[in-house]
């Protein structure tokens, strides 16, 4: 226990400062995100992530938002287990045909008003997988989409920027 406390003490808070290239961008985006979430969502934006058929690369970067470098909870963003608690769906694709009904049902379980963001090259337009007997491609082919975050996969910073833009235009 003492060693754990010692480690916590020595490492300190790593969330800030960030390496030069990202620092201004992350701080700026983070602060704007926090302000907008304060204004529009009472300080707390609940996101339900749905993997609708991805290669899992996008999931790794969405998970990274919770690591201490990004600490997205600091800005008021929470990933929730149930769509019934969600203000926003982050959907990665391509939407496999085997997941399309599950995706539709997840949307139906998400209360309005809600936002849907398609994540990644695959979520945006099918990416490397496109449309086929097994894939519906873009998320927008299955459910209405409000915003798109491109990249293969989008970096955590891209994701934060995309979430911010999506709530801004809301």
């Amino acid at each position, binding site marked *: 226990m003492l*060693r754990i406390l010692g480690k916590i003490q020595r490492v300190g808070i790593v969330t800030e400062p960030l390496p030069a290239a990202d620092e201004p961008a992350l701080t700026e985006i983070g602060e704007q995100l926090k302000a907008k979430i304060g204004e529009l969502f009472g300080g707390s934006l609940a996101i339900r992530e749905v993997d609708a058929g991805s290669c899992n690369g996008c999931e790794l970067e969405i998970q*990274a938002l919770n690591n201490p470098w990004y600490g997205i909870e600091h800005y008021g963003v929470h990933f929730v*287990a149930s769509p019934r608690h969600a203000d926003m769906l982050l959907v990665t694709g391509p939407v496999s045909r*085997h997941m399309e009904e599950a995706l*539709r049902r997840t949307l139906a379980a998400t209360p309005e008003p809600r936002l849907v963001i398609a994540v990644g090259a695959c979520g945006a337009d099918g990416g490397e997988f496109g449309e086929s007997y097994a894939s519906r491609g873009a998320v927008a082919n299955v459910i209405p989409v409000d915003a798109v975050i491109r990249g293969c996969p989008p970096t955590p910073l891209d994701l934060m920027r995309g979430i911010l833009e999506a709530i801004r235009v809301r």
Partner: protein
Amino acid sequence: MTPNPLFAPFLDHLAQAGLHVESVAVHGLAPTQVLTLPAEEWGRLGQEAKGWGCRWAAGWGEDMGAEMDPQGGKTIRIHACFEKGGAYLLARTTIPRTHPILPSHTPSYPAADRPERHTQDLFGVAFTDHPDARRWTRHQAWKSSEYPLRRDFPAAGHPPAATSADYQYKFLAAQGGGVYEIPVGPVHAGIIEPGHFRFQAVGETVLHLEEHLGYTHKGIEKIAEGRDAQGLARLAGRVSGDSTVAHAWAACMAMERAAELTPPPRATWLRALMCERERVANHLGDIGAIANDVGFAFSFYQFGRLRESWQRASFDAFGHRFMMDRIVPGGVAVDLEPQFMAPLREEVTALRKQVNKLMAMVYDSPSLTNRLLGAGVLAPEQAAALGCMGYVGRASSLDFDVRRNAPYPPYDQLQVKGVLHHTGDVNARMRVRHEEIIASLDLIEALLAGLPGGPVGSEWQAPIAGSEGLGIVEGWRGEIISYARFGDDGRIARFFPRDPSWTTWPALEVLIHDNIVPDFPVCNKSVNGSYSGQDL
């Protein structure tokens, strides 16, 4: 090419047993021993291979059209890949498309169960004595009378306007006082991939777990057809995003062997450098997540921090946080600039220290280890029966690592430290990861120290139609086997990537037995199968 001498006694044995096997030389498949035999003897081959102590490593089909039959009859070719003592054997047989039935290997090898059902769903091959003829990969997107990997099935298929949920899959149901069922998924509570788990439980204890996967099936094998080599490398790098380096390497190795092309030494060393970095990144993430699943947030944040800075360094040196699309046919897409040598070396020293310190704390926290010791035990016999590999196998006494047992460049010139544990529990799977991180860090140092100069790629030249190759590498989850065959104009005719997850998903069903339902997340994380890698 001479057949692999290691299998000569087995071939003699098969002949004596009355099997009509024929050893064939296929350049791109060497050093794998290739043999063909009549379809009716396929099941016997399984029994003999089992008796000989071979591991059933992979199986796949291919629609050969009229290529194999001088009379113009259409055939399907079935492959089964075995391994023993680091030597590989590829057996194949052909069956007429009009009568596609074949004895099964599953009675001898449980590892063949799902791969054969995948072949059944996608090629319409019936495995006569398969103990479980239920569909596996097919849900509701295509009909039971349609076979997407046959040549006459268009990639676009004939799907319904909207595909319905898969509601009719016949799960095993338990009966008796107090038995209840818990359905979970396909959409899971965390930021993870989709799949369905059906638990039969009594009180808190799991009586039985059945997995229903295939939700992320996106037709990778079908859309591989007709791609050029570069396009296939990109696709292979997306079979399972967390293994992008290893899958791209295996696919490129298969294509290069088919094309009789040897990438320059600097390229293979850089591939290994990226592959070891991928292993370290994933193990760091997993150790943090395993601890988090039993409520040890400290470790989750510490390892998350280490993983993030590791990925950032990958971005700096190779231009992508996961090093996606960095392995290309013939070599690598980016060279390592000299200014990154020192930082990469320093990073290794720093990480080794940090990881060892953190792990000392983990081992020293009884509240944590108490949850991990004895949880989710996979006995060595069970692991061997399922053909497990990677950290799952190595936590259960299975000492196999392609880098050591069937080394490929550059590992043939390097010392790869073996990691082995015997208790088969969550704790052992975590310890294997820890020790593998340290072993990979040693390797990274050796790779940086010995990195040869010269070009990082050879010019790609597409091979003639019919050329085929096998690529076998040790990804972070274990052995990846990739098969590629070229058709006309340097286009891919068949691609099959066998992710290690094919063998570890069934292990999860076994090791969860008699554990409590609340320990499922940590047991699952300790195995961490790829859904996408097995669903294809």
